[in-house]
């Protein structure tokens, strides 16, 4: 049964339009040209493009980052491929003169962990359900990224995290970090708050001006997680939020945007089900004007119909709402 669940989720996650666009040649020598941006003192982020996986971008559509701790660099997410992980590691060491001492995976989506191999010599930590998810679904995710991103993926293999993270505030490599276990984007979403700089790494719980992805989403749980994150942004020390996709923000705007999208999406699907609409009709509904201009709004909406409409429909047919 595992195989089935895997196949099904894969299709949800990766059936991108991008796979259909031929003729785009990869950049020379598969160079992601990674350049970390300073978010705060000792905190950096690599900001990916707000696109789908393509042969051209090689999966550089995700944000990763690192924190400079006294003992070395704490890395947050490893990107979509071995090449990305290696280039990221090289870039951050060149930039800071320090070596990474630990990698954290925020959740089990492939653009966030397929660079793990480049950090196989280090502790790689994640929430227990994330470790399980990567072990069970990682290979299938990787297979599909090979199809979507081609040779950018060369030699990429799944490296399952070797450490289960305990949540709460503690010193990691000499830096005060708060690890917050949430869920809703997937079954386990880890947010990392750097107490020293006031930077919040929100993972894919927050998207900034990019339509959120929902292949493993539980919208109600996700909305609750956003409330928890927004409370952190109201703490006096908060300075910046690094979303999983989209630009770094100095306020809670990505959280509010993600909440607005999810609330609209949940409401639209429920109203459509209540009106008796069939899935083909729901697929054609317009995206709300507030979001229609976001990159990938239309394609993510259509994917989300597949992920979330069957449950909305079941709720109506069973008379629950």
């Amino acid at each position: 049964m595992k195989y089935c669940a895997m196949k099904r989720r894969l299709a949800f996650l990766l059936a991108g339009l991008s796979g259909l666009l031929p003729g785009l040649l990869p950049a020379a020598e598969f160079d992601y040209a990674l350049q970390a941006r300073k978010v705060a003192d000792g905190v950096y982020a690599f900001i990916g493009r707000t696109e789908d996986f393509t042969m051209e971008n090689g999966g550089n559509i995700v944000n990763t980052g690192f924190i400079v701790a006294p003992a070395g660099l704490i890395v947050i997410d490893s990107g979509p491929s071995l090449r990305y992980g290696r280039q990221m590691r090289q870039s951050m060491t060149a930039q800071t003169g320090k070596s990474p001492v630990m990698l954290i995976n925020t959740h089990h989506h492939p653009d966030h962990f397929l660079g793990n191999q480049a950090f196989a010599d280090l502790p790689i930590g994640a929430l227990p359900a994330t470790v399980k998810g990567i072990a069970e679904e990682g290979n299938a995710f990787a297979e599909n990224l090979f199809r979507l991103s081609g040779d950018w993926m060369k030699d990429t293999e799944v490296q399952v995290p070797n450490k289960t993270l305990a949540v709460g505030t503690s010193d990691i490599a000499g830096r005060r970090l708060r690890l917050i276990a949430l869920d809703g984007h997937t079954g386990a979403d880890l947010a990392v708050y750097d107490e020293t700089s006031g930077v919040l790494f929100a993972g894919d719980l927050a998207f900034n001006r990019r339509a959120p992805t929902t292949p493993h989403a539980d919208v109600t749980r996700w909305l609750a997680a956003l409330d928890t994150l927004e409370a952190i942004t109201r703490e006096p020390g908060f300075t910046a939020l690094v979303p999983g996709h989209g630009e770094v923000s100095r306020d809670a705007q990505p959280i509010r945007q993600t909440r607005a999208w999810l609330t609209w999406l949940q409401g639209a699907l429920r109203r459509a089900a209540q009106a008796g609409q069939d899935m083909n009709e729901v697929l054609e509904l317009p995206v709300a004007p507030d979001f229609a201009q976001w990159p990938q709004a239309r394609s993510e909406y259509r994917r989300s119909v597949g992920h979330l409409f069957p449950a909305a429909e079941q709720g109506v047919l069973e008379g629950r709402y």
Partner: protein
Amino acid sequence: MKFPMTIAALALAALMPAADAAALSETGDPLASARWGEMEKSFLAGAPVLFDPRVKVIAPSMAEDPLQVPVTVDATQLGKVVEVLVFADFNPIVQVLRFYPEHASAYLGFRVKLQQSTPVRAAVRTADGIWHVGGTWVNTVGGGCTAPAGSAAAKDWQQRLNAVSGRQWSTGPNAGRLRLRIEHPMDTGLVAGTPAFHLEEIDFHDAAGQRLMRLQTFEPVSENPVFTLQAGENAGAVEASGRDNNGNAFRARIAP
């Protein structure tokens, strides 16, 4: 078969709007499928066939989830329809379902598992014996038919087998519509170790006891099927009854 078809086509064209008449075709599969000849031979052999734009088959051109591809067949522009056969040329199991609209409209929404990119077609037989064929290509990236049903992974699926939920709409833009969901794994038998296990027959009757529709379903219909019918605004409480290929029967009443 060429001669009788031509007469039929001419007669039909005279009754149709010019644009539709121009698109009527007796030869040349508009979907240019390498398997059309084989399809015609297996399912429609010997009877006159027309590619008819009035047979609407709606499905996404790119299926996000090959296990749940939504398909809507609308043959309501054709007049009296006797039988509708839905098939997908390149599926390992080609036949998806057949329905016989009696007192309901020649309209059905459902979801299907597709193994690869394929035309999805409806062949609609009218009382004069002509098959009117419409269809659309669906592109897919993954396999739907050889993946086991997911519901079997849920612990309580056996308790919920054939559980029916549904609703009728009597007001609003979808007045006269009936939607119905049946819990069933719809196993194709193509996965090693899992025999074919699927719903076979569903009958819909209105409150007056008239049959609205007889529906035969095959393996490619998606797990936990959801059907959308136009039962009409005066159907009253509709009774849905049916069984799967293992003889498990169900009966449910869906009040407006």
